[in-house]
């Protein structure tokens, strides 16, 4: 049977991983290739690499990095950050990325989803949505969660699916960084509403949080960053725990 996926997310700036990284066994924990390969070896099911470099000039070096990742990492990976056109995506896929994630650019111009799905297939397109609760509504935010929009999480996710997104990566800005657990209610609503997979993101602090996201939130995958980078939760231990709770987990 299909297993639930555990996905570490790496933020990349100027070709290096950022956010505190505290991996003891690596020669160079700032090297995304080495870190990605280490996660793959530990049993991560997929990886996400987000390029947070500011300029287009630096983005060109990102596709070289994607190629290095593809050479060394033997599990699927998604890349994202600043993608706003079919032309941005082609070199990343050519370099060996399995999926791309889009966020602010799709909010600004939703047709981007249709264009990417048509050019490369839905399975390549991950729609990342950052949202927070404002006056009892889950409002979509862009630019790393800083800028509010008038879009609502559920209708936007549904529209994304209809336009051809293959997966939704939902981050609750209210939960991100709190380590108090994923946003379970909206997750479970998304999963009832959609027929494409949903990745939970933002708020993981304990192994129980992953269990909740999968069992109550019905998420297909759960993503975390610093928690894994700091070694606070080790992937093999997490997977063993989830298996002991009778979840279907790859080991």
């Amino acid at each position: 049977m299909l297993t639930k996926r555990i996905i570490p997310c790496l933020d990349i700036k100027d070709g290096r991983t950022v956010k505190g990284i505290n991996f003891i066994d690596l020669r160079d924990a700032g090297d995304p290739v080495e870190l990605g390969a280490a996660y793959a070896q530990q049993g991560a099911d997929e990886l996400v690499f987000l390029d947070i470099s500011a300029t287009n000039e630096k983005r060109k070096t990102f596709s070289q990095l994607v190629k290095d990742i593809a050479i060394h990492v033997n599990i699927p990976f998604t890349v994202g950050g600043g993608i706003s056109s079919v032309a941005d995506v082609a070199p990343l896929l050519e370099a060996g990325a399995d999926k791309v994630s889009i966020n602010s650019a799709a909010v600004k111009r939703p047709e981007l989803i249709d264009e990417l799905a048509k050019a490369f297939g839905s399975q390549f397109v991950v729609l990342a949505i950052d949202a927070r609760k404002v006056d009892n509504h889950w409002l979509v935010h862009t630019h790393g969660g800083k800028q509010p929009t008038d879009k609502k999480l559920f209708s936007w996710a549904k529209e994304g699916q209809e336009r051809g997104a293959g997966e939704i990566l939902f981050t609750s800005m209210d939960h991100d960084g709190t380590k108090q657990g994923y946003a379970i209610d909206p997750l479970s609503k998304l999963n009832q509403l959609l027929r494409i997979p949903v990745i939970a993101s933002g708020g993981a602090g304990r192994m129980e949080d992953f269990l909740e996201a999968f069992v109550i939130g019905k998420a297909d995958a759960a993503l975390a960053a610093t928690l894994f980078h700091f070694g606070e939760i080790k992937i093999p231990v997490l997977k063993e725990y989830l298996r002991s709770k009778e979840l279907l987990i790859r080991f």
Partner: protein
Amino acid sequence: MKVAVIKYNAGNIRSVAFALERLGVTFTITDDPEEIRSADKVIFPGVGEASTTMQYLTERKLDTVIKNLKQPVLGICLGMQLMCAHSEENNTPCLGIFDETVQFFKPTHQQKVPHMGWNSLNLSKGWLNQDLEGEFVYFVHSYFVPISKQTVATTEYILPFSSALQKGNFYAVQFHPEKSSNAGELVLKSFFEKSR
């Protein structure tokens, strides 16, 4: 050993190439019929849509080349589906190497389509290394090949379907060995070592 990877508009050629490099296999990526025919082993990758891909192959006469190959050929994902008789994806006649018709998964309330992620293999005897029994491999597909005499491994999602096939010199897998970690590497090794 000369390995040819068939070059066409498939989305995963690069990933397949990297996986072969990791295994230390030397290969050429080619759409030259002579080079494909003279290779010891041939890999037919595939990510994309059935009808446009068949059209692409037919226009370049690669359909006839592939069907008539005598050496071991490994079809991957869409490559495997195109080796079947017919696909429900835009009602497409395919290469007809395997007898089956490729069918669309009907989503259920609990189980979404595409079938995307890691799922396990149940082997019957065949070319796959027996250590792969129960191992997890990575799938991304909305269409499946039903179980038949040519099935050598099954996987369950919505229903049991063929995750690997063989007929004579033609071998095929529905999943992506190039993305399936150590298990995927063992699948590729099985093909290189056991096929003849």
